[in-house]
């Protein structure tokens, strides 16, 4: 499985660390109730199919939003988390 790092180009999956679904980027406010933090840390929609995930490229340190299928392992693309945020 190759992941296209926007900074380094297509790299082997072994250089990357998965952090979870892209919903992980939607962090609750600091004073949000405990349920919101429980949901962030523990609950997963865990989709079977194409989904957005957060991975870190451990070589350059970049955090990526990876467009990937969990059934076929096909990677459709990746962009920097900061760019994904700006794009809304």
């Amino acid at each position, binding site marked *: *499985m190759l992941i296209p790092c926007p900074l380094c180009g297509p790299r*082997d*999956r*072994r250089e990357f660390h*998965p952090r*979870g*679904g892209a919903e992980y980027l939607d962090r609750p406010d600091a004073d949000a109730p*405990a*349920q919101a933090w*429980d*949901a962030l*840390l*523990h*609950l*997963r*929609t*865990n*989709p*079977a*199919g194409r989904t957005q*995930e957060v*991975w870190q490229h451990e070589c350059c340190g970049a955090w990526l939003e990876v467009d990937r299928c*969990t*059934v*076929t*392992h096909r990677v459709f693309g990746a962009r920097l988390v900061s760019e994904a945020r700006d794009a809304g």
Partner: protein
Amino acid sequence: MRYSGLRVLAEGLRGNRGWRPAWDRPDPQDAYDIVIIGGGGHGLSTAYYLARNHGLRNIAVLEKGYLGSGNIGRNTTIVRANYLLPGNSEFYSHSLRLWEGLEADLNYNVMHSQRGLINLFHSDGQRDAFARRGNAMINQGDDAILLDRDGVRDHLPYLDFDNIRFPVYGGLLHPRGGTARHDAVAWGYARAASRLGVHLIENCEVTGIDVAGGRVTGVQTSRGAIRAKKVAMVVAGRSSQVAAMADLTLPIESHVLQAFVTEGLKPCIDHVVSFGMGHFYISQSDKGGLVFGGDIDFYPSYAARGGLHMAEHVMEAAMTLMPMIGRARVLRSWGGIMDMSPDGSPIIDRTPVDGLYVNCGWNYGGFKAVPASGWCLAHLMATEESHEVARRYRLDRFATGHLLDEEGTGSQHNLH
């Protein structure tokens, strides 16, 4: 029909014309008292113990494929009770005791083989940790023997004892640990449940869970709607999808775990050997193949096959531990989809929907748990009380902080 040696002899003399299918294949009824979603090991054992222990009869098991087509047939068949934490220790101890009486109870040969399991250690610190674990196992009523280096050599002379990175210091022997024939466990429970009147319905995929006023009322399936007073989701590997039918989000992430088997060899590995530093474990099947596995692939996956990076890692660990394995040829490999929970321990509990129960999150420890898992879920469904050995397997323990992190690796799905 009861199976026995006499029966085999009698059927042999009569041309084997008297054998009947091991279980019935009824059409689904419109309604049942209890519907179990998932005809794998856990679902079938749940149905069996609901009938056997609690006298319930109006039960159906719905399976989208054929019975035993999921993880009960995609594992490395290891049975053990070597857990440390209160909450896990008594549960797996209960399960092992059930395993020891299982063949007589089911009247079915599941080829349970208590050949002994050895967990290797490679440092003084690890020895201390295993001594503590062994004491916990003995306190629980199970067996554990701390072996020194020569003690391990008596059992496993083929290891690379002087490996430069992981020299073998000793091992924790769990004599009652071993293996069983995985498919036979599903078949044995299916047959025993069917004999008690449980309806086993294959090729029946659940497509929806009906909830009215906060209470489950039945399920929609590919073979029509079925009403039910109580429904259990016992579908490890697909737990998130089935739970979503009832608008529930589970603390589960799906990962693929690979296993490998070599060509059949003469007996050479007599035990189950576990090499924790490489997350590698191995045993030899009764057919002679060396069955071994490693770690999960570490990223969410529903593909029932693994990545080559982990295959490479497993082979490296195998060669590190027992260089002789380099002479064997790998015949095939496969991957199973694991329900990974945040703390590495399972969930047997009610859900926020009345009458809907969940049994999930088995990580890669589900096979040995099959008897106790069914026993405890049946107890919960029949009595509305958690069984005493499964009372910590709560769905809400991540929110309340009552974790069961056996490995001490942190509360994240892919760290176990």
